[in-house]
């Protein structure tokens, strides 16, 4: 959100804005909630943050000049989530892209199939990933975003979306297989 968008945010929105918002932005509430839920790992907190993000989006709505409304909204949701995390769980944001990525073998398709077929197990594995890995996976796999959209939402250069996803998937493989004792030996 640019400064000019914020400036326009102080405008009083009328019934026409409300109707446009209803048509363009509100249909993406599920996407907003889903992203918030996976970033915050809590449904209750996500309700609050998704509502706050939606209201912020509404206040900035006159700064939205058409285009991809879902990406525009998700960008606001993501920012609101990170602000919330900084305030409430600052430690979570400290484990970032700091790891020196050692080449890891991909888990075998069979191993992943076994590990990934359990919803709880998959959820736990996703939640162990640092937020910046988690979000690209959620946007790509659950939301079906294009690289261009992911770049817009997460504010990373479009050229690095592919490698960000590659690393996130490798992390997920490890998280899935690491927590499955019988698969540990294969990974090492």
């Amino acid at each position: 959100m640019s400064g000019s968008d914020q400036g326009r945010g102080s405008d009083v929105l009328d019934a026409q804005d409300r109707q446009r918002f209803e048509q363009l932005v509100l249909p993406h509430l599920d996407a907003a909630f889903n992203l918030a839920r996976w970033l915050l790992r809590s449904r209750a907190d996500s309700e609050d943050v998704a509502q706050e993000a939606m209201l912020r989006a509404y206040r900035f709505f006159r700064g939205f000049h058409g285009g991809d409304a879902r990406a525009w909204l998700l960008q606001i949701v993501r920012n609101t989530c990170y602000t919330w995390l900084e305030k409430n769980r600052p430690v979570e944001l400290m484990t970032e892209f700091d790891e020196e990525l050692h080449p890891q073998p991909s888990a075998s398709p069979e191993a992943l199939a076994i590990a990934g077929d359990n919803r709880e197990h998959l959820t736990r594995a996703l939640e162990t990933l640092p937020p910046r890995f988690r979000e690209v996976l959620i946007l790509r796999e659950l939301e079906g975003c294009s690289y261009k959209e992911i770049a817009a939402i997460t504010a990373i250069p479009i050229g690095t979306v592919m490698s960000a996803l590659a690393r996130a998937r490798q992390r997920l493989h490890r998280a899935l297989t690491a927590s499955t004792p019988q698969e540990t030996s294969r990974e090492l």
Partner: protein
Amino acid sequence: MSCDFTRTVLHGYLDGELDAARAGEFERHLENCRECANALGAEESLRASLRRVSLYEQAPVALRKKIRVALDAATASPAAIRLPAWRWLAVAAAILLVASISWFAVPRFRDSSVSSPVTAAEIIDAHIRSLLPGHLTDVASTDQHTVKPWFDGKLAFIPPVKDFADDGFPLIGGRLDVLNGQNVAALVYGRRKHVINVFVWPTKEPDTPIHPPGARQGYQWRHWRHQGMEFCAISDVSDSDLYELAQLIYQ
């Protein structure tokens, strides 16, 4: 393990983000790279798992409702520009303040037979008007038996007229006046060299005692209702003098 494609291009291929040339290049590579073939298989398997267990979490219905309410609250209604709640309170408080100030600052002598109440400002104006040369009395007489019949036929009521010369309030005369659009009787009394106007008009309101004094612009007044008549005595004399006359008339 050594294949760079596994860590990068494979994902673009998996996600359908490669252009045709690069996709073709990767497919040719895939034919000869077991590592990439395995990795691609693993990613496709994982993607299938993610879809199968449906991790997507939809917004609760209650949240949708809450947001709609909040959006409505943040929207100006077509009828009126929306003000924040505290501003409405401020506006309401200001209106209330002005209303209460005018209520107290402008005493009203209510009379149910009159469409709207007589105000102190009108009483004062009428009193000042009476002091202009030639305006004080229509009938100049110290004789109550002259003044009282004079009103007969000129008003729809007969005001009580008494001379209180013995008490230091000689009757000077009487005249017709108009307060708030209705004809009233004005009785004029003297007090040393000062003039007291006593306005009298009929009322259906119950009797009251003599109200506490009002004062403005150097004038004092006393107001009361007694036996179907409303009285307002006004003058520049002291309130104790005014009160004394009011008590004499009230008896």
